[in-house]
């Protein structure tokens, strides 16, 4: 990757790595008897590794100007591999934490392997490690194809990819050591948060600079969603992570807000991390790869507009449905419920738009497991958003909240929607980028598809059962008017479902391992197609093609 940088960019890279070393060393010294110290070392060592890579490529010739006539896809390629690796790691930890609930001694008496420390490694590993890398890799690909413009430079995409993954490593290693803010899905501490803001600003700059140089008059729908993802995540991240650190040599910080204001801010963040990370970003993915793979244009342009602005506006009101019947004022709970229910309209407009796009291509869905991944993802998206609106109704929430039902709902979305659309998109994208005629094995894609579907269904059914049983047992009264079950009674009733859930997760994990193997073998296969992949749209300046992306 270094040899692709121009001279100026190599200087920029050197400065970046030097800054990492300096900041890392400063953190290591200032926090030598604090948990921030090891993180200083990780940052410094990653900077040193970068410097060594730079020095090794010192004499490499500068890239030729002819590079400008091609899209810049190498960061996307690296992102695909990172996505698959984070997926396996995050899901492996997920199976472990699921097993811990059934067999609590699987901590092996270590400090770092308790449920409380591993659980955020799982959530961050799959959301930020797997999901985030998938979004970065695909967004850079989609951005170039739909604008017919090359990325603005070679340095910034690598900076984003490298910096983002360093953030993920800091997050995951921090949880194991006990560094956490306790805010769900916003656990990393202040210094990692600041670092992510820098990475994110560069990510946004790539997007806006490419859009400004676009050779298509319109900005395609996929980019609306990717932009909403980048912008709103920045807004949420900054506001929810306002803290005062104990000192510059301490990892620990205290949040600026407390109590009810902090709770509302956290769930405004938490729910919209779902909305703009796990929904908007992946809708961007769906709006490009599904029509491309199906060979059909998006069914309705107007439905795209309505659902995009509906989601962007209404989701931001919905967070308070996480706080029904709590000490949050009633009026905020009511607002959250109303907007959550109405959200079903733009959500189903998106899901319907995707499925109607497949009209005329259903024979492909039958034959092509890659397209089937995307089709199933759209179905799960529709099911999960319906369930979400349903669970946000106050009376329903009184039963479901605090139970496994919520966990089941999240995984219907995370496994059924996010992971399936990601794997479908990556399966489509890999042969295009590496210029292979096809994936290494179509049979393995079939295996992955059915393992993923079976795993998701087992998981979700187990959690529906356990959640509803839990909720009912907690509120069951006996004839004498007292509560019928102790808390422990409900815990005992969960045991079989916790085993079933771990099994469902294991099936999904096996699918993720198969995907990693299949794509790795596709990359290694030494039979590149001689010509440009037929499905790719040339950059402007290349021989013009009749095909226009997404229009």
């Amino acid at each position, binding site marked *: 990757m270094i040899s692709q940088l121009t001279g100026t960019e190599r200087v920029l890279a050197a400065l970046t790595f030097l800054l990492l070393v300096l900041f890392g060393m400063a953190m290591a010294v200032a926090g030598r008897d604090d948990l921030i110290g090891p993180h200083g070392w990780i940052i410094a060592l990653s900077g040193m590794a970068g410097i060594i890579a730079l020095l090794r490529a010192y004499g490499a010739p500068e890239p030729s100007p002819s590079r400008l006539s091609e899209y810049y896809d190498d960061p996307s390629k690296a992102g695909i591999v990172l996505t698959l690796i984070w997926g396996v790691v995050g899901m492996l930890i997920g199976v472990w934490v699921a097993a*811990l609930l059934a067999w*609590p001694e699987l*901590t092996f*008496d270590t*400090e770092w392997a*308790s*449920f*409380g*420390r591993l*659980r*955020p490694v799982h959530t961050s590993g799959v959301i930020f490690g797997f999901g985030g890398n998938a979004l970065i890799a695909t967004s850079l690909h989609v951005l170039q194809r739909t604008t017919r413009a090359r990325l603005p430079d070679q340095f910034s995409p690598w900076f984003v990819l490298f910096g983002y993954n360093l953030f993920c490593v800091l997050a995951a290693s921090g949880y194991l050591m*006990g560094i*956490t803010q306790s805010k769900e899905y916003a656990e990393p501490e202040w210094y990692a948060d600041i670092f992510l803001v820098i990475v994110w600003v560069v990510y946004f700059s790539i997007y*806006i600079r490419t859009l*400004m140089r676009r050779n298509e008059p319109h*900005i395609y729908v996929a980019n*609306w969603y990717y*932009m*909403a993802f980048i*912008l*709103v995540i920045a*807004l949420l991240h900054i*506001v929810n992570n306002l803290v*005062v*650190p*104990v000192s510059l040599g*301490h990892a*620990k910080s*205290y*949040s600026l807000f*407390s*109590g009810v*204001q902090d709770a*509302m801010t*956290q769930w*405004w963040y938490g729910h919209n991390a779902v909305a703009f990370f796990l929904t908007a970003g992946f809708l961007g993915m769906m709006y490009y790869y599904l029509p491309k793979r199906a060979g059909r244009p998006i069914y309705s342009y*107007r439905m795209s*507009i309505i659902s995009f602005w509906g989601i962007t*506006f209404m*989701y*931001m*009101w919905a967070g308070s449905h996480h706080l*029904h019947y*709590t*000490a*949050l*004022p009633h009026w*905020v709970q009511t607002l*959250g419920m109303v*907007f959550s229910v109405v959200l079903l309209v733009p959500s189903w407009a998106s899901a319907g738009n995707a499925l109607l796009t497949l009209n005329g291509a259903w024979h492909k869905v039958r034959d092509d497991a890659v397209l089937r991944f995307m089709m199933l993802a759209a179905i799960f998206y529709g099911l999960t958003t319906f369930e979400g609106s349903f669970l946000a109704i106050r009376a329903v929430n*009184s039963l479901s*909240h*605090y139970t496994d039902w*919520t*966990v089941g709902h999240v995984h219907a979305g995370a496994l059924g929607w996010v992971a399936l659309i990601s794997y479908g998109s990556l399966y489509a994208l890999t042969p295009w980028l590496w210029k292979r005629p096809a994936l290494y094995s179509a049979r393995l894609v079939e295996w992955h598809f059915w393992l993923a579907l079976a795993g998701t269904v087992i998981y979700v059914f187990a959690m529906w059962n356990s959640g509803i049983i839990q909720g009912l047992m*907690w*509120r069951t*009264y006996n004839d004498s008017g007292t509560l019928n079950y102790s808390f*422990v009674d409900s*815990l005992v009733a969960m045991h079989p479902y916790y085993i079933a859930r771990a099994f469902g997760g294991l099936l999904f994990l096996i699918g993720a391992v198969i995907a990693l193997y299949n794509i790795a073998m596709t990359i290694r296969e030494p039979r590149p197609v001689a010509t440009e992949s037929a499905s790719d749209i040339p950059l402007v300046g290349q021989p013009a093609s009749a095909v226009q992306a997404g229009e």
Partner: protein
Amino acid sequence: MFNLHYRLERNAIGFVVAILVVASIGGFVEIAPLFTIDETVEKAPDMRVYTPLEVAGRNIYIREGCYACHSQMIRTLRDEVERYGPYSLAVESQYDHPMLWGSKRTGPDLARVGGKYSNDWHVAHLNNPRDVVPESNMPAYRWMSEKLLRTKDLGGHLAALRDVGLPYTDEMIANASNDAIGQANPDTDLAAGVATRYGDKTYVALFDADLSKVTEMDALVAYLQVVGRLTEVAHQLPQDEVE
């Protein structure tokens, strides 16, 4: 409307601004008034702050991710009030930076756990939950009794908490380390200082029954014993919202 959009989607900067404006409205309407409407948080004149030992214990509770399985928010539902106690009021977590309301009950709610069990029970339970509750699936924290509590920088923690709005005095900050040791060593001069600064009701005890050292177990148990007891207001106000 669609014509307007037809123009908007040809303008990158315009699109960016539109996204930011549209997305900001909901949070602004729902969050900003929580700081300005007085009824949002009840008044609790008897409310005290966490002692340094309790702050340290709370940080261990956070570090171990206890909030992932235990809520600290009793909802205004009849069965919850009967199971756990008076429903939680906003004021009870007004000194909680961050709040630990939680979102999942793999284990029971802890909003009223303070004073519910003895110190010995907590120590035995944390050491191996299955010794006390055979069906429990909670992790065992056997190592915690051996781990010395880091007390020397607690003053810095209190100062940071003061920066975010808690009423810690200079004296409290200056004596934070000694107060942490004192709270876990009854009948010493250091213990007397804790009562002076934080009130007579402060729970001073030999939490883990080990006189020789102040461990993380001491701090965590001290915190668990004060959860829900910074103020008595939830027990005094009428609980008229139960559904």
